[in-house]
């Protein structure tokens, strides 16, 4: 975290449990300047005042962030002791994430690392000493998690990949550094142009890695699987069955579930968010109507849908479902002897028949979804993505410098910069790492 306490950092800082409202905070010397580029309001931002307005920018769709509130705290009168901006927006995880991504593209901003806001508060004396230990725990816990937490197999793979990338970069750098520090010796040095190939490969890997991000996000937050179907088809019954507890209310009356209920379970080692939804049908009840709207939203953001049919209900498949992977379930088979064709699973929530098959089916579907990415690596943290975007840009700079035939010391400086960026994930590369490579690879010394 240090040495760069002077950077401007940004993070989602919504306290858990407050749905609907999200707060994104920017802290540091560039905070005000940055928000002024995005925030349109009748009033100017004033310290310690909440100002209403909308976020407007070429990278944001029209109307996406129409009503938001920005509060500006001028340093040192803020929790971090620095200039601080809080942006409150309405909307769920998707919008928060979108805003964060957009802000991270602003020049000079970077994603905060674990505990960094709190750390700054501490440094500026804004939180008292009794909380210092708590901060310590936080930093410590996150750091440990990065290395140890078994659930984070994804992070472990990421480290391996990044290590491999830095190794290749160090190798390139070694060639340049050896030429700079040992040019008085009879060693054949390959020309910097030879580095363009390996660098382009690294860049391609980075591109592929960046493409996994959206997906990785979902893995991190949990793969969303809503149960969708006509009222009374047995969605809530199946939801409870999958959870192994009576979480949702089940009645014989159609339209029982009005609001969505979600709950996390683990399948194949991955976190899954199961969502019970209101049955889809034409309705005039206002409460039920908004429930139906939410169900359609859920389908929109689903990774996989379980579509529940039943003999005693009529299911109209909504348009939203066309592009979403789905498992079709024909429920209540205990009631009938004839089964329609083209269903994936035939099930009875009452007798349990077909449930094992459904579980198997879910398992393999999840495993297939997860087995994408680069060498088993999926980017799932915004901070990591931020690192890789800057890294990719820096590799472009390296390649341009080589093409412009700059001296090896300047190309080396560009490469070191790239390594420093990667080092935000794996730890810093030291001059000794490079010298060790030189000594083991070249016969130097007189």
């Amino acid at each position: 975290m240090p040495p760069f306490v002077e950077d401007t950092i940004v993070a989602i800082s919504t306290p858990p449990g407050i749905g609907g409202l999200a707060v994104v905070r920017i802290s540091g010397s560039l905070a005000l300047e940055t928000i002024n580029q995005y925030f349109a309001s009748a009033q100017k931002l004033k310290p310690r005042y909440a100002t209403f307005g909308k976020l407007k920018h070429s990278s944001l769709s029209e109307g996406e962030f129409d009503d938001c509130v920005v509060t500006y705290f001028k340093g040192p009168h803020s929790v971090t002791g620095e200039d601080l901006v809080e942006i409150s927006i309405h909307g769920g995880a998707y919008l928060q994430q979108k805003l964060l991504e957009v802000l991270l593209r602003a020049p000079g901003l970077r994603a905060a690392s674990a505990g960094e806001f709190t750390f700054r508060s501490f440094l500026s004396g804004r939180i008292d000493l009794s909380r210092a230990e708590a901060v310590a725990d936080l930093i410590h816990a996150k750091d440990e998690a990065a290395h140890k937490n078994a659930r984070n197999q994804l992070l472990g793979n990421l480290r391996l990949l990044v290590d491999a990338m830095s190794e290749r970069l160090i190798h390139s750098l070694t060639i340049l550094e050896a030429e700079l520090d040992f040019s008085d010796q009879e060693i054949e040095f390959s020309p910097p142009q030879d580095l363009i190939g390996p660098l382009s490969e690294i860049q391609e890997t980075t591109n592929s890695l960046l493409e996994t991000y959206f997906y990785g996000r979902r893995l991190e937050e949990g793969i969303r699987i809503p149960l969708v179907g006509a009222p009374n088809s047995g969605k809530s019954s199946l939801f409870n069955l999958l959870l192994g507890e009576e979480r949702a209310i089940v009645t014989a009356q159609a339209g029982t579930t009005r609001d969505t209920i979600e709950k996390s379970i683990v399948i194949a080692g991955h976190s899954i968010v199961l969502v019970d939804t209101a049955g889809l049908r034409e309705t005039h009840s206002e409460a039920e109507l908004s429930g139906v709207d939410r169900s359609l939203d859920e389908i929109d953001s689903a990774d996989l849908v379980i579509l529940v049919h039943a003999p005693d209900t009529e299911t109209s498949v909504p348009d939203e479902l066309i592009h979403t992977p789905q498992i079709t379930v024909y429920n209540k088979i205990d009631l009938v002897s004839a089964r329609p064709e083209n269903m994936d699973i035939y099930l009875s929530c009452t007798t349990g028949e077909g449930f094992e098959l459904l579980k198997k089916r879910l398992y393999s579907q999840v495993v297939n979804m997860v087995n994408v990415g680069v060498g088993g690596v999926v980017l799932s943290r915004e901070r990591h993505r931020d690192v890789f975007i800057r890294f990719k840009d820096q590799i472009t700079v390296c390649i341009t410098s080589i093409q412009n035939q700059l001296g090896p010391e300047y190309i080396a400086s560009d490469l070191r910069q790239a390594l420093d960026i990667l080092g935000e994930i794996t730890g810093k590369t030291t001059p000794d790492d490079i010298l060790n490579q030189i000594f083991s690879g070249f016969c130097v010394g007189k």
Partner: protein
Amino acid sequence: MTVSRESYDVIVIGGGHAGIEAALATSRLGKNTLLITMETAALGRASCNPAIGGLAKGHLVREIDALGGEMAKATDHTGIQFKMLNRSKGRAVWSPRAQIDKKAYSAYMVNTCKSQAGLEIFEDEATAVTANEAGSVISGVLTRSGSSFKCQSLILTNGTFLNGLIHIGNKSFSAGRIGESASVGITESLIELGFKTGRLKTGTPPRIKRDSIDFSKTTIQAGDKNPEPFSFSTKNFDPPNEYCYITNTNQETHRIINGGLEFSPLFTGVIQGVGPRYCPSIEDKVVRFAEKTSHQLFLEPEWSNADQLYVNGFSSSLPEEVQLNSLRTVSGLENVEFIRPGYAIEYDFFPPSQLKATMETKRVKGLFFAGQINGTSGYEEAAAQGLIAGINASRSIDGSDAFVLERSEAYIGVLIDDLITKDTDEPYRMFTSRAEHRLLLRYDNAHFRLAEKGFKLGLTGQTLYEDVENQKALAVKTEAFFNSTYIKSDVINAMVETQATVKESQTLANILKRPGVSVEDIQSLLPDWVNDLSPTLLTLIATNTKYAGYIERERLQVERLSKHQQMRIPDAVDYLSMQAISFEARQKLDKIRPETIGRASRISGVTPADVSLLIILIKKNVSRETH
């Protein structure tokens, strides 16, 4: 030799490259100084190769000059061949190197020291350091001849002499370097004071007779035609340009060396000390890089018109006859005769994590270490440390604050910071790759960076300082001119045909920034007052302009380094009880006991998270204490 008193402000032990700079600095800063050394005539003797400077080392020499040291001047006076290394690359990594006349170099240093006011030289061997009863404050030294001296600051610069042990084949004997006796007693008295010590090794090649060489079978290597001096104060520089000669080993040479390995103290395990990987012996090279069929050798004269040459590249501790027989397979050396064989030497050093950035020991107040005793190798590394130790020994007597150069200010800063925060067990040598702010630390701007500091310290002369300031002002003016003077596009397009054409007029700076364009290419666009600047200054300015983007980026990085870098860590902090910090980091921190957060963060195995926690815990403890 007699001395005038029993008590001195400063005593320096050892008249090597470190000791000389230390003693000159303290006496020039007005401290009564006694330099105790075994042999006055050996002052500034070059134990190994007859050369000063080279990659990264040349930077150190320039910095020493900017801070008022002596090494650069001595080199300019006694050099017999000068060469700028890395000339085909950018300025940041150019590095000057000189072949010196070893005898003249030493004589120059003897003369300089003898004529230095406030400096007395005493020829004797120091055998023990003395301290107060608690062992916490230095009090003086005892010598072989039975003298005892008191001092406020003591600077130890014993080089390779502490319990030195020379190896040639299976023979080994006590010596400080060939022909000089080892120093016995100092190590033991330091261990008694609680210091940790270790053993290192280095080696040197044979010296051969000029008239036994057939030069017609070698390649002549001359220096630069218009060399640049090391020192800013050297004017009308017109040094000799004597030849060195290049030849090569071959497979037959390697066969003989391989056959002699069973008598090599390196390979039989007789030598315990760790040697430098960047100065491998020939037997090391032959074994580790078996696929190489030939290694380059440089034959370097040890002094002007010397009858004695140094075989650079052939350092060895093999038995004399193996050295001789293998060397006789080399083209031009078929009938070579030795003046003396190569040898290896093992010696005591004191791991420099026991030092503060001032070169004062953490354990004993007033006691300073500089040079090879700190596990470095090289004349330049030694001289740089000697200078800093001398400056701080003097300032600590005055009660002035410490003089510490940052990593972003000088190679000397990198050198000392590395020494005290790294815990390596290999002899340390300077490389440009060790400097993360390499593009800022150029050899040509050493005086721009440091002369003012040297002047304020009282070491750098007024004339040199004013010269530097004038040049600085000229540089600023010229750079501004480059940035504000526009040239029409048709003029530019007509000039550089290989470049993409431009549509609008451009500043001179932007023209210079285009790939492949140098200041020589645009001379016709420059007014006389710019073209009349000295070529050295003009190139410096052009470099600043051309690479402004890079320089700015490094400057920003330095600025971004947090203020917490400077945050001091209390001496008594108890790392082992800091449970929140990882076990490995706690142990490292406890061992090295860094003085600042910046240094803590550079210790290997200490993660950024550990550093954050350290800041928290320290702030917490400090405020508890003040309650």
